[in-house]
């Protein structure tokens, strides 16, 4: 193609782009925005039920002092118990909410304290999969018993998992992984690395599902779908055929996973 042909093609493309732009601008021309009507609804929802600053009334104050005293006594008692407890006694360190129909009780003894993320998966794997769970406070992890570095690390993971920055990091890493999925059918050496990374992210997904972030219904559903995809990817190591990859891509497409990850990334950056 000569440079003149190239110029002609480029000009023709520009003309077509302009026709397209004009046509779409006309067919998608927005009406005048109903600013006042929209503001009325926004005002009602944002400022409408604004409550005055909380004031403790006399009646509340009468109960406040004994309640605080009882709480202080309780904290003192628990602290004394920790101090007095023998260091080599096995004590429960993970205390989760009482069982309900949807959430069986989950406890772990000091013997099962995970010392690395692989072990962390065994603790979290008792979570009933794909069941909508109520928000639960995981901050109680490792708040009893003797201090243990591994338990503290796990507790810190649980606590950090709900934060916006942690969520952003997780979503970015997941996007990178899903974008680097092998495209051909034959198993390659890269499969092992991808599968290993998927396993790590799967552990993180479990932690996030149990964190405060996981209590958001939209995010919870996304995390559950990612859990499924990452589990599929984690199985890619070793023998595989085209069907395995096809299944992963089907899950990604059928559940709109990547666009939803993108939305969640924006959301996390907003709340961060």
């Amino acid at each position, binding site marked *: 193609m000569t440079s003149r042909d190239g110029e002609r093609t480029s000009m023709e*493309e520009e003309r077509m782009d302009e026709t397209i732009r004009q046509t779409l601008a006309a067919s998608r021309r927005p009406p005048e*925005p109903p600013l006042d009507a929209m503001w009325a609804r926004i005002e009602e929802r944002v400022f409408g039920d604004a409550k005055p600053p909380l004031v403790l009334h006399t009646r509340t104050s009468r109960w406040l002092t004994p309640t605080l005293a009882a709480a202080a006594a309780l904290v003192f008692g628990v602290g004394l118990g920790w101090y007095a407890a023998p260091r080599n006694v096995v004590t429960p360190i993970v205390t989760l909410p009482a069982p309900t129909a949807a959430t069986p009780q989950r406890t772990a003894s000091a013997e099962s304290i995970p010392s690395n993320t692989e072990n962390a998966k065994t603790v979290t794997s008792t979570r009933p999969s794909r069941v909508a769970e109520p928000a639960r406070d995981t901050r109680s992890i490792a708040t009893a018993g003797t201090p243990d570095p591994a338990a503290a690390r796990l507790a810190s993971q649980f606590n950090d998992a709900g934060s916006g920055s942690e969520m952003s990091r997780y979503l970015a890493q997941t996007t990178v992984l899903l974008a680097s999925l092998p495209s051909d059918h034959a198993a390659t050496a890269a499969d092992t690395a991808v599968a290993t990374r998927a396993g790590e992210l799967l552990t993180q997904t479990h932690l996030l599902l149990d964190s405060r972030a996981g209590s958001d219904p939209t995010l919870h559903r996304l995390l559950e779908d990612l859990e499924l995809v990452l589990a599929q990817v984690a199985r890619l190591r070793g023998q595989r055929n085209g069907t395995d990859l096809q299944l992963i891509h089907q899950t990604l497409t059928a559940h709109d996973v990547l666009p939803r990850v993108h939305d969640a990334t924006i959301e996390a950056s907003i709340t961060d």
Partner: protein
Amino acid sequence: MSEAHLIARVLEGDRLAGRELYDAHAPRVYRLAYRMTCDEDMARECTQDTFVRAFSKLNGFRQEAAFGTWVHRIALSVVLQALRSQRRRSARFVDIEAAHDVATGDGTHDAELASRLERAVDELPEIYRTALIMHDLEGYTHAAIADALSIAEGTSKTRVAHARAKLRDTLTALRDQ
């Protein structure tokens, strides 16, 4: 009055400051929402949800970016979620009347052209469609798109170019008929 000052006043519960911020950004948010959804009700709902969410999360806004950029980020998230959940695009009819506004050729051809292009836009992957509408219809810069979508500026350019190429194919096919 600066936006930072208005934000501080909104956080103290000042509705008038809220209205001032809203007036400054709502028209553009509404336009974008309408261009993306082609539905007045959805555009109105999305604009309302955007500002409700923005005001509710205002204490977490660290003012590292401009308020407008932040609001547009929220708006895009709200609009894309609404589009996905309601799936109205496939059931939407092209506004034939609006297509007549294109003042070239005869009316029937323009309506057909608009209809085919609208369908082609709807069939574009969401990431390309969003970038195209923001850039070519609403005049956002690639830098602004990159900021709002948390992508690189080059990625925005690639997405717009890809979307345009797809639509040119549609136009060519229509002309060849």
